[in-house]
């Protein structure tokens, strides 16, 4: 009974706390729609566009499901993102969290209770209103054991799942054990209609995973997003029509989106993607770094513009195995030796990697966070300039000597020799491995370079642990704590030594602590301090040797309006505000 008191206090606090976010809504006069008192007004800079037109893009490979809860890979989510919305969404330029299906929210003083109020008048494609029941249902589905979704992991904190309940038709309350600093960033899961999916969930998780598979008639996929799916032709295309009841308006109060039809062509590979754009069949192409100058020259003739975008969030890297279950001494001793890792970091020619692989369009990486992540990037990290003499000197200080035969030997006289691998399907990574091998060989290290199939590689990384050094990459998010699988010493993707019972080193323990502090820190600037320290540790300890963060270079047909400003990771303006300057087709 005593427990109830703090809860009640928390509830009263909810009412007192001010509304967070919603920057655009303060502008006067207030814009409304006949069926919606408070539509979302686009906050990023844009011009008022024209209605009409068919927008065409292409993507590699087919969608795998139309069920956004279980969708994992971009070939599905890129399609479904047009159909579904979350309670909140991310500003594509700043990365800040903005209202979406929820028009406002409050958080209790203790930071553990959040109440979201749904936007009034938002309806599903079939005309039924979006209510708190749909929100609760969505999270029920996510937390149903056996439903294949990664959202469950991001919404589980310290092993405790998020709790949620309906307050009334328009309000939902979420509670966590501890205050969660990144709460808004992980709560944006797409909301799905209860009246369409409840039956499937009732039949069990296996049935739910199969519901809304790609064999479902597109018209049955009911969402709230800017476009309604009209047709899916396997291996060829997905076609959308404008949602005439969408809940966003431009700065003049015109209902979005402007485009009438939206088509995503399905092509088998990157070459086809490129060819389709150059043949003017598609309007947007995310060019590769080394295509930048070539495309720059074609701009005028082909009537498009290629933009100089910022860095992506993910870098390729090489990681050395420090797991006693996978490598034996003396190898283990070298890889666990910070001095060794630092020394060979000076023998990674990041400039050559950037030039050869990315045609110069990449920024050297000294730590786990991209320069492109303006919110948390640490610009004061120690840098390891490419310098073989320095590397040799550091190795000598650590007791490694180059013998007369040219091979590097450790203090016990063992020749330093190990196998370097990467996934053979990825030409870029294979080329990086060649650059790496050349330089490390110059140090006297015997590097056996053996690229393998991706499947095999992942099996070794996460299963047998039987590997020495691997070149690979991981996707990155804005908020590093979402990557805790990699950074916590207990994580299954803590590549150099996964699933440790207890942190093996003091610095890994400190990272564990920093991540737990960051996760519970609500204030973004304080969270930033934890992240800065984490980047510092990683740069000093180099458990992972990062190479470089490649830049983005989106190419867009000049017939499109509202393309710029270019946002995070090279994103152009969302489909909501894109329009055709002259509506021809």
């Amino acid at each position: 009974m005593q427990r109830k008191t703090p809860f009640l206090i928390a509830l009263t606090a909810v009412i007192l706390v001010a509304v967070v976010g919603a920057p655009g809504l303060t502008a006067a006069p207030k814009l409304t729609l006949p069926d919606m008192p408070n539509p979302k007004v686009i906050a990023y800079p844009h011009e008022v566009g024209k209605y009409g037109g068919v927008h065409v893009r292409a993507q590699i490979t087919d969608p795998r499901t139309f069920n956004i809860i279980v969708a994992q890979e971009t070939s599905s989510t890129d399609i479904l993102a047009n159909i579904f919305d979350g309670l909140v969404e991310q500003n594509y330029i700043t990365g800040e969290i903005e209202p979406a299906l929820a028009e406002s929210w409050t958080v209790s003083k203790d930071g553990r209770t959040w109440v979201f109020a749904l936007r009034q008048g938002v309806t599903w494609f079939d005309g039924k209103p979006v209510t708190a029941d749909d929100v609760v249902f969505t999270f029920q589905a996510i937390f149903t054991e056996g439903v294949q979704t990664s959202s469950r992991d991001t919404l589980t904190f310290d092993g405790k799942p998020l709790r949620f309940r309906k307050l009334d038709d328009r309000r939902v309350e979420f509670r966590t054990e501890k205050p969660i600093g990144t709460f808004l960033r992980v709560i944006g899961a797409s909301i799905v209609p209860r009246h369409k999916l409840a039956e499937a969930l009732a039949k069990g998780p296996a049935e739910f995973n199969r519901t809304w598979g790609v064999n479902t008639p597109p018209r049955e996929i009911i969402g709230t997003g800017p476009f309604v799916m009209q047709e899916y032709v396997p291996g060829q295309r997905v076609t959308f029509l404008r949602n005439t009841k969408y809940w966003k308006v431009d700065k003049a109060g015109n209902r979005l989106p402007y485009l009438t039809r939206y088509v995503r062509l399905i092509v088998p590979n990157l070459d086809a993607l490129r060819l389709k754009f150059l043949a003017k069949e598609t309007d947007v192409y995310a060019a590769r770094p080394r295509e930048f100058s070539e495309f720059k020259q074609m701009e005028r003739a082909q009537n498009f513009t290629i933009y100089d975008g910022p860095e992506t969030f993910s870098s390729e890297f090489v990681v050395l195995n420090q797991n006693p279950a996978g490598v034996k001494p003396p190898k283990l001793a070298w890889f666990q030796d910070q001095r060794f890792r630092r020394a060979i970091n000076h023998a990674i020619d990041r400039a050559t990697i950037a030039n050869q692989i990315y045609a110069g369009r990449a920024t050297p990486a000294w730590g786990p966070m991209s320069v492109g992540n303006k919110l948390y990037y640490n610009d004061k990290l120690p840098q390891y300039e490419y310098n073989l003499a320095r590397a040799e000197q550091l190795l000598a200080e650590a007791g490694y000597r180059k013998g007369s035969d040219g091979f590097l030997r450790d203090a016990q006289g063992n020749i330093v020799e190990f196998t370097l691998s990467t996934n053979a399907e990825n030409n870029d990574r294979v080329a990086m491995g060649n650059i790496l091998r050349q330089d490390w060989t110059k140090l006297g290290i015997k590097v056996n370079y053996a690229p393998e199939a991706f499947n095999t590689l992942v099996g070794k990384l996460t299963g047998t642990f039987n590997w020495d050094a691997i070149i690979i990459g991981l996707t990155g998010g804005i908020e590093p704590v979402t990557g805790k699988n990699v950074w916590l010493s207990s994580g299954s993707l803590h590549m150099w030594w996964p699933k440790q019972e207890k942190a093996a080193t003091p610095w890994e323990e400190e990272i564990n602590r920093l991540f737990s502090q960051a996760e519970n820190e609500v204030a973004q600037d304080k969270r930033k301090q934890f992240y800065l320290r984490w980047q510092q540790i990683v740069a000093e300890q180099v458990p992972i040797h990062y190479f470089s963060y490649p830049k983005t270079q989106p190419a867009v047909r000049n017939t499109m309006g509202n393309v710029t400003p270019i946002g995070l990771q090279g994103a152009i303006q969302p489909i909501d505000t894109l329009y055709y300057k002259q509506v021809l087709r």
Partner: protein
Amino acid sequence: MLRHVLRRLVQMIPLLLGITILSFLIIQLSPGDFLAEIRLNPVVSQETVDQMRANFGLDRPLHIQYLRWLGNILRGDFGYSFAFQVPVLWLIKSRLLNTLLLSVTSLIIAWLIAIPIGIHAATHQYSPSDNLLSFTAYVGISTPTFFSGLLLLYGAFRTGWLPIGGMTSLDYDLFPWYGKVLDVAQHLVIPASVLAFLTVAGLMRQMRGNLLEVLRQDYVKTARAKGLSGRIVIYKHAVRNAINPLITIFGLELGGLLGGAAILENVVSWPGLGQLILDSVVRKDLYVVMASLVFGGVTLVVGNLIADLLLAVSDPRIRYD
């Protein structure tokens, strides 16, 4: 004849069993599984991956997995695709017609062209036209389909005469029926001619060789000596005999109808079965691979059977009892 057909069909059963057991083992024992990509996703925990494995039944012993699969296909249930979470049969059906359209069209074109020019080359041995045809055939045989496919795509891109890959245009659904036919036909030109070119090259050389062989036979000389016109000698007697080995080849080609054009399909964005199978093999989508192997095996065996039957029709010396 009927007994022979039945016997061949019964013999197919152990053969297919062998094929499926072997391929099941090879797929399962090779390192890695379907979940490799998900394992490398920083936001997915180990527990989630383990649970997915259990959902897919991948955590059970191999023989149990195989027997369950076998039991299911005997009831016509080919299982669910891991990647798509839809029935494997639906996936295959969604692309089967596209592949058949491409392979059958190219097969017909190839045979219609290859036989006459093979005959021409044989009857005009070492003439300039024979040399030219032989040269072209060598080029055809030695050019991989992905290369000629790319070349033609590039040509289409430069000239704008033909669509660049795919099977239908954006507005396909708005076309009247003849517009639809024309549209698909336009898209067919590149992939079908690439495939046909390759087949023509091989077939034509075969036809030429066989016919030359036959023309050296005594009975041809006899027929000529008897005063039969050259035309009748060649078309009524020689060609009839020279075509037998080609019928065997025809049977093999029937077996390749479903998956034979995988790489080309990939190059020219043809939404066919080959592409699907290739993807499934790469990502180890077990039941899709198994189903396509079963279908491939059946068509191969049936193709051979048809060829043998055709052979009996064309050559009275061959009898099945």
